[in-house]
């Protein structure tokens, strides 16, 4: 059974695309055939983060309009087996998306034997975001530890549970909370919301916490999903996220301030 997962947030710049790329690459590296679709038509970024921007010939909108086949548009990742990217169009806008078209693409991916279809949502609650979440079975809600991001995530959760296809049919979209750009030091200092605060407001299960890290930006700029950087904390945290998503019981890491070990802890811990 293939699963459609939307990576969404409401607010922009919180790390949806970075997380989509990392998550999809993680799933693929664990042997699951995975496609990641960029729904940000007109502002395509996913191909950059995935480092395939120079390999885009056809895009999502071409497939929807029947101007190319899905096979022609899907880009096979050269680093990770089982990973495919469906880029967005840069020259069109969100109006190019429609339910029927998106549904047919998703159904074709399912028929092709994809285990996971990751939908990278654009920011906002308009058409692009709506299209990205409409067919989702599960949702990863990406949130930064600050109030406006949490508020927007709350809003998008409401839309997910009232306007998605699953909700319209009387079901529930499974929700996962992914906190990114988390800085335990600043949480301790009181200028960032803690993961407990965020969870209390959103009251959905926590899938993972990605620490704020320079390697994320570096990885994005070089077109390598950060999850491939097995040395970095962010990469490891994303790998934990993927494991947890697949049902493994993995403890949270990198959520406590570093270098604050007390004397006794240093001795015994």
């Amino acid at each position, binding site marked *: 059974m293939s699963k459609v997962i939307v990576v969404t947030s409401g607010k922009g710049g919180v790390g949806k695309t970075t997380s989509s790329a990392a998550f999809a690459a993680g799933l693929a590296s664990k042997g699951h055939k995975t496609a990641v679709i960029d729904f940000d038509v007109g502002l395509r970024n996913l191909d950059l983060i995935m480092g395939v921007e120079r390999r885009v010939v056809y895009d999502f909108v071409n497939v929807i309009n029947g101007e190319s086949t899905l096979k022609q548009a899907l880009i096979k990742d050269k680093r990770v087996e089982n990973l495919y990217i469906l880029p967005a169009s840069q020259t069109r806008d969100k109006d190019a998306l429609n339910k029927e078209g998106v549904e047919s693409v998703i159904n074709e991916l399912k028929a092709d034997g994809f285990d996971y279809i990751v939908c990278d949502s654009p920011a906002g609650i308009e058409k692009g975001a709506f299209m990205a979440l409409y067919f989702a079975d599960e949702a990863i809600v990406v949130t930064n530890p600050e109030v406006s991001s949490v*508020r927007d995530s709350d*809003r998008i*959760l409401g839309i997910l*549970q009232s306007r998605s296809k699953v909700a319209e049919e009387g079901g529930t979209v499974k929700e996962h909370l992914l906190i990114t750009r988390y800085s335990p030091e600043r949480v301790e200092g009181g200028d960032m919301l803690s993961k407990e605060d965020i969870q209390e*407001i959103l*009251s959905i299960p926590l899938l993972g916490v990605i620490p704020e890290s320079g390697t994320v930006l570096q990885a994005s700029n070089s077109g390598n999903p950060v999850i491939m950087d097995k040395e970095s904390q962010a990469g490891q945290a994303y790998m934990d996220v993927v494991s947890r998503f697949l049902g493994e019981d993995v403890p949270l890491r990198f959520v406590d301030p570093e270098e604050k070990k007390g004397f006794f802890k240093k001795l015994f811990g």
Partner: protein
Amino acid sequence: MQLKGEMSMLNVLHIQDTDVSEICSKLEQKRDEAPQFFMQSPIVIDGSELSGNALEFDFSALKKGLLDLGFIPVGVRNFPPAANNLMRESGWAVMREQQSAPSVSKSEPVQESKAKENQTTKTQPKDSQVEENKENTNPAPQANPVASMKNQMTVDRPVRSGQQVYAANSDMTVLSPTSAGSEIMADGSIHIYGALRGRVLAGARGNESARIYCQSLQAELIAIAGRYQLLDESNTTLKGKPAMIRLEGEKLVIEAL
């Protein structure tokens, strides 16, 4: 096919006198306030407040007037039985009075609205089922206890920012948290067992005895029967605590639960 006794949303026009042209002109003003809302909406005429003689009432003229205004006249109720023939001749359906309706059809909408809530998170108030007109039927204790039971809406999913939930003609019980930027409204009282963070409006149609009960009062705005207050402007010490809000005269009073 199935034939079921169900209630659905109807506008009820309460008439006080027999002047059809005045009724129509007042209704026209009302309609123009929200033309989209009233466009082609079914309407029922209630005669319980009528002071004039029902036998002198021009039911045909009223029907024509309503059609001209874009309403769909459905039926009449609470008129003296003597006028029944007159109303039928003018093409009106004479509706059974509330208390004589079978109890089955009373309990059905309750279940329905509950089932519906479980499916959708009802961002629109009109999603909620409305059992119309319960207040202005006989105030005396009723023979049938089931019929006198108040409608009740239960919300068991978080009410998120941007969502609105409205319990028409009933109380509301919320088992989940409500978020900042959300809005819950009821014509009756509201009970919230999760954290209350959004706006909360009880007695939305003017019921001054409606109250708000909550486990953790963090609301942005509280209101009963149109009297509202921003919680931040209140000097209550009960923020974040269990509280009850009621109306005393024109003032909202927040008390510990």
